[in-house]
Structures are given as C-alpha cells and as structure tokens.
C-alpha cells in the first residue's frame, strides 16, 4: 500500500499544550464542570480526563475519540459572541442510552431504540453540557459566548466529524483540537468525548485570553 505524497504537516501537528499550563488549567476547570453535569445526567459518576489541547493534521479529525466507523450519537453546536468555533459532543451508544433514561425519568436500562423522543432528550443534554463548558470558559476569560441549538445525528463517528472537517478543510490542513474524554470507572463501555475546534486556532480570542 502506498500513500500519495502529502504536504508535511508533521511539524505543525503534535504541538501539545501541557495540562498544567494556564490554558490547560482553564480547560481543566471547564472539564470538571462538564463532568459534574454529565454525572447528574447519566446517573453515574463520570470522570474527566485532562483536556488534550493540540494541533492535529486534518486527516485525524474523523477518528477523534475512537474509530471513525463506530456508531455514536453526535450533537453538533457552534458558539459565537466574543469568539467563534464548533463543538461536537460524541456519546458512545451505551452512554447515550444512560443519559436518555435519566433525562426521560426512566429506570436504568429502559432505552433501547434511539427514537425521536430519545434524540430530543439527548439534544437537551448536549445543550446543558455545552452550556456548562462555555460558561466556565467565558467566566475565566471574562467574555461573552453564546451557543447554538444542538443538531443531533446518530451515525458513524467519522460521518459526524465530517461536519467540522469541512470548515477546517476550508482553512487549512491542521486544526486546534481541544478534546476532553469522560469515562466511568465502573462502566468501561460508557464514554463521551467533547471536541472544541476554535475557528481561529491559537489566534482565537478566547485561546489568547486564557494562554
């Protein structure tokens, strides 16, 4: 197998912001706020990993948080105001069912089909989690950030991530990825990934303010 020669984006890629930097700590606090909210929504303690803040090559965008061929419930949002960017919340299917049970006041294990009512409940959960995240960031940065209505889809991870990929591809071959993974210690198959892609990368107003 041979790959057609691509421009060398390796130098730009893998720029990693340490978790103990001012930027890393700011996103770490936002991650904890989301973990608390997600724990309430899921009815089980969810822990946030340290945010991974890094510049990645575009070709890796479709596999953020797992295999691009995995099925997920994805909630796509954009934010605006003092800054702009895209947010994608990716629920593993088991995580989505857990959150749906809690949101719909059903006993655990009730939700099987991801029908319209379930997706509507999950959309609301995306609104709650993204709001917690952006509020924490906006307060730290002293800025005003507003989020859009979540747009839900149940599909392959890669297909969902093609939405932010289009905007990224218009701008270049790399992107600033702020990724937070949430896991349950007791339920290894349950997980959520929050991906934030600021439109202007490291030049974003929020990123510059927090750095």
């Amino acid at each position: 197998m041979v790959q057609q020669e691509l421009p060398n984006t390796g130098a730009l890629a893998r720029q990693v912001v340490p978790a103990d930097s001012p930027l890393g700590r700011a996103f770490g606090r936002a991650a904890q706020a989301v973990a608390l909210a997600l724990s309430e929504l899921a009815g089980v303690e969810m822990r946030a990993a340290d945010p991974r803040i890094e510049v990645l090559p575009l070709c890796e965008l479709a596999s953020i948080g797992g295999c691009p061929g995995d099925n997920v419930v994805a909630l796509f949002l954009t934010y605006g105001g003092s800054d702009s960017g895209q947010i994608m919340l990716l629920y593993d299917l088991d995580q989505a069912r857990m959150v749906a049970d809690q949101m719909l006041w059903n006993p655990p294990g009730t939700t099987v089909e991801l029908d319209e009512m379930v997706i509507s409940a999950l959309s609301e959960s995306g609104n709650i989690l993204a709001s917690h995240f952006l509020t924490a960031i906006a307060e730290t940065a002293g800025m005003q950030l507003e989020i859009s209505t979540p747009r839900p889809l149940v599909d392959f991870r890669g297909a969902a991530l093609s939405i932010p990929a289009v905007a990224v591809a218009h701008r270049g071959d790399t992107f600033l990825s702020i990724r937070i993974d949430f896991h349950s210690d007791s339920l290894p198959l349950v997980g959520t990934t929050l991906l934030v892609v600021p439109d202007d990368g490291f030049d974003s107003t929020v990123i510059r303010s927090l750095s």
Partner: protein
Amino acid sequence: MTASVQARVAQVPVGLGEVKYSSDPREALVAFGLGSCVGVAIWAPTKTLGALAHVILPTAGPNMRRDENRLKYAEFAVPAMIEELLRRGATPAELVVRIAGGAQMLRDVAASEVFNIGARNIQQVRHEIARAGLKIAGEHVLGYQGRTMSLFLRDGRVTIHSAGKTIEI
C-alpha cells in the same frame, strides 16, 4: 467471500483528504465513516491495482496556499489518482470507477444552501470523472446517512456499509 478469507484482509484506512494505492490482494482500502465526504475507488483489473480517495471539498478557493494538501479537493484528487494509476501501468480503458458518500449530515439545512457540501462534492467528482473520459460503474451517494466504503484489492469489489447493512456496488 467466506469468513475465513475475509478475516485475512487487512483494512488500510484512508483518512480525510488522503489518496492511497495498493496492489496487495490481502488488503482492502477503507474510507471509514464518509459523511459529506466522497470516496472515489478506481480499480485497474489487469494490474490488480486500486486507489481510494477520501475527498472533503469540491474545489479549492482562490486563496489556496501553495503547500496546502490538494488531495482534499475533488478537482485535484480525481485527476491525480487517475494519473498515478496510469503511471503505474494501468490503461484508461480498464479503469473501473465507483463512488460513495456525499450525504447531507444536517437535515435542517436546505438542500440549496451552500452548506450542502455533500451534493457539491458528488457533482464535482462526477465532473472530473467525465472529464477524464471515464464512466461510473457503481455509486451509493447523497441521502442523510454516513457510509464506510471498502475497495478489496483481491478482486476489485467495492462494498458500502451504511445504516446497519452492507451492500456491493
């Protein structure tokens, strides 16, 4: 194909904006989770040689940088992969082209809007294939669901996995 033969096939992922080539019959080139992106598979049977592109956008804008990856654009990826296959000994008459993808991932966006990038990708891919004098032998395009596209180098088969089903195109 039996399960035991399938198990021996090594899946080679083709990422966003990439084009990959293979003549190894033990491999399958795979574009996982195509959404609005388009997979273009070209098979040259006499050389048992295949290529798979994972196109993201139809055309480059006027501000494209010189060092930018052109293969993410349909207008560059399709001619480049045809040229490379011919350079490796394939003949134009034998090339078998199949395409998949181009879905509209956000249902609430009107089809006429600029955001329906999937349809524009399909249109551009078709245009480039026709311009090269080739025909599309099979396709699975548009709609609202993602797809995984696989090109098997053993025999040139192309399968599409979407909405829980796998079909051959």
